[in-house]
Each structure stands twice: as C-alpha cells, then as structure tokens.
C-alpha cells in the first residue's frame, strides 16, 4: 500500500522535473535578445487599451459554485459504487434519495437562471 504511493511520489518528481529539463535545454540553445517592443503585450499589432486584467462576468463564479457541489457529490458516489454489490437494499434507496435531492438542486439552479451564460 505504502509502496504504491512511494512509486507515485517518485513519478511526481520525474514528471515535474521533465518540463524544467526541457526548458533548461532550450535555455542553453536559444537566442536571448529581449527588447521592449518584443516584450509588450500582444494584441494583434494594436496598442493595448486600458487594463489587461479585465473584469470577467460573475456567471463564472456561480458556475464554479455549482461545480463544487456536484464534484463533491461524485466523490461521495465513488465508494458507494465500489461497495455496491455488497450493499443492502437500504443503502441503494438512500443513495437514490441523495441523487434525487441533488437533481432537485440542479433543477432549482436551472430555474433560478444560474446555468444561463449571457
């Protein structure tokens, strides 16, 4: 069990090292001649007007909230699905109630217009 995760830990180290290695090799080979014009913000040849970190619509935030709700739900469902064959009928009904409540929540968010993207 522990050895499984030691392997994953080693893999994480190699996987993080790889992109830095690639950029490092490129650093040795590439030209380095920065100029202010080169480093200006790219906007298809036009001067940038105003702030580049523009305000984004609040809809995005509501989407993220709904997502967090449903993502946690799926995480709850995973252990249920693994143990499904051993579970009594009661656990089945219980989980269907849980899914039902979440579906009602989705219907509510839908009616409230939280899922509309203007």
């Amino acid at each position, binding site marked *: 069990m522990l050895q499984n995760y030691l392997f994953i830990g080693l893999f*994480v180290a190699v996987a993080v090292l790889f992109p830095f290695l690639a*950029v490092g090799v490129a650093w040795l080979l590439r030209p380095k001649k920065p100029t202010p014009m080169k480093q200006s913000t790219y906007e298809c040849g036009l001067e940038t007007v105003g702030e580049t970190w523009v305000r984004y619509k609040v809809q995005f935030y509501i989407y993220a909230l709904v997502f967090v709700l449903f993502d946690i739900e799926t995480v709850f469902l995973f252990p249920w699905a693994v143990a499904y064959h051993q579970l009594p009928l009661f656990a089945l009904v219980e989980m269907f109630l849980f899914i039902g409540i979440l579906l009602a929540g989705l219907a509510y968010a839908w009616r409230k217009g939280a899922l509309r*993207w203007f």
Partner: protein
Amino acid sequence: MGILETLDQLLNILGNALARWLATFLPAWAVTAIMDFLVIVLVVAVALVIVLFLIWMERKAVARFQDRLGPNRAGPYGILQSIADAVKMLTKEDVIPAKADKGAFNWAPAIMVAPALLVYAVIPFGRGMVPQDLNIAILYVLAMASMTTIAVLTAGWSSNNKYALLGGLRIGAQLLAYEIPMALSMLAVVLLAGSMSTVRIVEAQARLPFILMLPGVFLVHFICAAAESNRGPFDLPEAESELVAGFFTEYSGMKFGLFFVAEYINLFAISAIITTLWLGGWQGPLLPSWFWFFAKSFAVIFVFMWVRFTLPRFRIDHLLSFAWKFLLPLALTNLFVVGLVVKLGLGFWPQAAALLVTNVAVTVGALYLGGWALRRAQQRAVEERMAQWRAWQQSR
C-alpha cells in the same frame, strides 16, 4: 512457455531478470527503488515517443481529410517532421511579456505537463504491465485530469493579456462543466466492475466489454473526453478566429512547446482510459496483449481526429448548456438505471441484455426529449422576434 506468451510478457521477463541480477549485490529496497525509477523513465519515454508520432499522425490525417498531402519532406512520408519541429522549438527565443506575472507564467507549463504524465502511472498497457496498480486508480485519474484547469487558469491569468485571460476563463468553465458527466459515466463502470483499480476493470470485461452493455454511457464519456482534451468541436479556448491562441497566446519557444506536448500526452491518456474502461483494455485473442491495447487506443484517437475535422466549433453558451442541461441529467439517470438493473440480481448474460436495452432506451428518450425542448425554445424565440417586428410595423 510458448512464443506468443513470451512475446506477451517480454517486458516483464526482462524486468524480472534485471531485478534478480540487481538483487545479487544490492539490498532489497535499492532494487525496488531502481526498478521503480526504470519503469517511470520507460513510461515517460514511451509517452514522448507517442507524442511525436501523434503530432505527425494528426497533421497527416488532417491533410488527408482536407485532400492535401501533409508533411512529406522530412524522412519517408514526413515521419521525422515532429522531430524537426522539436528541434525548432528548442532553438526559438523565449519571449516573456514585461507585464506578465513571471513566477506563475513560468510554472504554468509544468503544471500542465506533469499531471498529464502522471495519468500514465495507472494505465494497464498489457497483461501484468501496469506501472502501478492503485486501488483508487479512477479517482486518481480524475484528480490528475482536473489539474489541467489549474494550469490553464494560471497560464491565462499570468500572461496579462486579454486574449489569454478570456481563453483561460472560458476553458476553465468548459473543463469544470464536462468533468462531472465524465466522472458520473466512469462511475457506472466502477459500479459494474465493483472496483476502481484499472487492472480489475479490464479483468471484469473478460466476457464482454462494457461498451456493448452501456453504449449510451460510453457516448457521454466520449463526448466529455473530447471536451476535456479541448479537441474540436470543443476547441473554444483556442478558437483562432476569435482568441488568437487562447490561454497560451503569450507563450513562445519551449514553453509553448510544452503546452503542445501536454495536449498530445492528454489525448493518448484519455484514449487509453476509454480503452481500459469501455473497450476491454488489453483483452483480445491470439496477438500479444500490449498490441491489442495500443491498437484499440489508436483507433479511439483516430475517431477523435475524425470528429475534430468533421464538425464545426460550438458556441460557448451552447457548449455549457449542453453539459449542464443535457449531459449531467442524462448521466445521473443512466447511473440510476444501471444501479436498479444490477440490484435485480440477474445472471451475467440476462443482466448484460437488460443493461443494453434500458441504456439504449434512456439514451434515445433523452435525445428525443432534448430535441423537443430545443425546437420549442427555437419556436419561442422566433415568435418573440415576430411579435417585436409586428409591434414595430404598427408603430410606424
């Protein structure tokens, strides 16, 4: 041991021989560490070779779909084209915008590539050829897949560029929306197999691959997988005609190259997961198991490319509505029905038949209902416009 069996287990036989030789002069923990390290390096090397091949394959495929020749100068059939591209990437200047948030800007490609590679840790490449058999493999895959969201948001925000920011936030919304139906369709497989381990899931499909039991759920997973890997028709974040290159507009040189590589690492990982969950993984007659695995995975990748070059791009509101209002309820209903059928306690074949019938019925019903709702919405929109027009006419 027959020749076929030897071919099948070639890598394991070599690995075991090496481990035995190392054990003659090293302590046990050192042997394990060295073998683990070698496996990881091998997996990363295989992943990179696959990436080089996929870049060539995609360019060749798109050329053929568009009645062109595609790359044909570097090597026979242009097969060395991606190596030439890699060399070019390495020697290109790395321009960092003066206004960018440097730390986040430099880390974003690494956050993108590393989780994509980490998915390979649980992919069963053949019989007994899984880098590490985690008992929560599917959850692990989902966790790694959602790291992409963090990477694109980091890249989009830190570039300090309007296109990059809009592209990054768009892709964030898209990845979040499609992750839930994908997790729910994977859940149906976990429920049937009774395990989250990829090895067990492949073994559970010895008699019948899950795609023949639950084609509707497979379809949901396939659509979500295409959206998760930002492939057409879901390639909004890098919609060239409106957002230049989306979240990596400001990236150049090898850092751009890393985003490119990550996309193809992801493409193969996602196809491999589809193969494992739905197409029976390495199961297949006669030929070596790893051959079956790669053949099925590349077939899935080809279908992804086919879809990409055939369908036009979605609009962002349509894309998100499709995920939240159609795929999510459909995936939940599917899960509900699968759970119900499994609890009936039928034998293997009657249960498979019952799953197939109910699944097809649910999918067809959902498509019919969705189409009806869409037509009604369109009708209403048209009527509204007509009413407005009539009111304008009368006011003249």
